């Protein structure tokens, strides 16, 4: 295990290109953490969902707002924090996308995928910051 960084923080504008660049930057480190290919797939998906949500739903692509992304790693886990400058939301208000009546809704699956692929997902009380962790043993 020889990741390039133990910790970095970036602040990006609210555009998708910048979002993809930071996901790639994180995955360069994550790729060297010894995860299985399934877990690498899941972490990429979860980080992408978190960053895209911050840009799209949090900051609503506003050029006046930024997204702060923090990556850290220790011996037991990786941790990604994503914070936007939007109004926040209540994750419990998002309808269950796997319920029969919601199956054909085109949105609302990002949260489910983050929960499924990460060990831990926590939103701040305001709902504009999410913390994702993937533990090496899980």
């Amino acid at each position, binding site marked *: 295990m020889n990741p390039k960084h133990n910790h970095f923080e970036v602040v990006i504008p609210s555009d998708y290109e910048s979002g993809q660049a930071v996901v790639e930057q994180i995955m360069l480190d994550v790729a060297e953490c010894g995860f299985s290919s399934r877990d690498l797939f899941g972490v990429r998906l979860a980080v992408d969902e978190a960053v895209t949500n911050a840009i799209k739903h949090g900051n609503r692509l506003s050029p006046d707002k930024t997204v702060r992304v923090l990556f850290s790693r220790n011996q037991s886990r990786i941790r990604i924090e994503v914070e936007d400058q939007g109004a926040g939301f209540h994750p419990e208000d998002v309808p269950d996308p*796997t319920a029969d009546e919601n199956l054909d809704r085109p949105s609302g699956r*990002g949260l489910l995928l983050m929960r*499924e692929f990460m060990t831990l997902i926590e939103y701040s009380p305001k709902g504009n910051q999410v913390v994702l962790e993937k533990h090496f043993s899980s």
Partner: protein
Amino acid sequence: MADAKPRLDLDDIGDVTVATFIDKKILDEANINEVGKQLFALIDEDGRRKIVLDFSVVEYLSSAALGKLITMDKKAKGAKSKLRLCCIKPDIYEVFEITRLNKIFDIKPTLEEAVKGF
């Protein structure tokens, strides 16, 4: 956008249109919106009735891409077209299972099975 890159490779096998995704990653929104536009055009503009979406090169797709596929499926049903998905890699198929979208899409393991008996 006039200069939008093609995101689908189209091929006809009999009366079935096979649309193969070109990109490995269907993740970023600009890409997804273009994929959506090109998918919807198969039904809205070309009036194709039997469509197979071939995922053989796709390694990643996000929930926003799933949203486009759901809209595509609804359009197909509304236009009395048939839509099938095939050649989905195991990691991505797991996403379909987690979201239970394997229940609403007609998914076949191989292109041959997808084209057969439409």
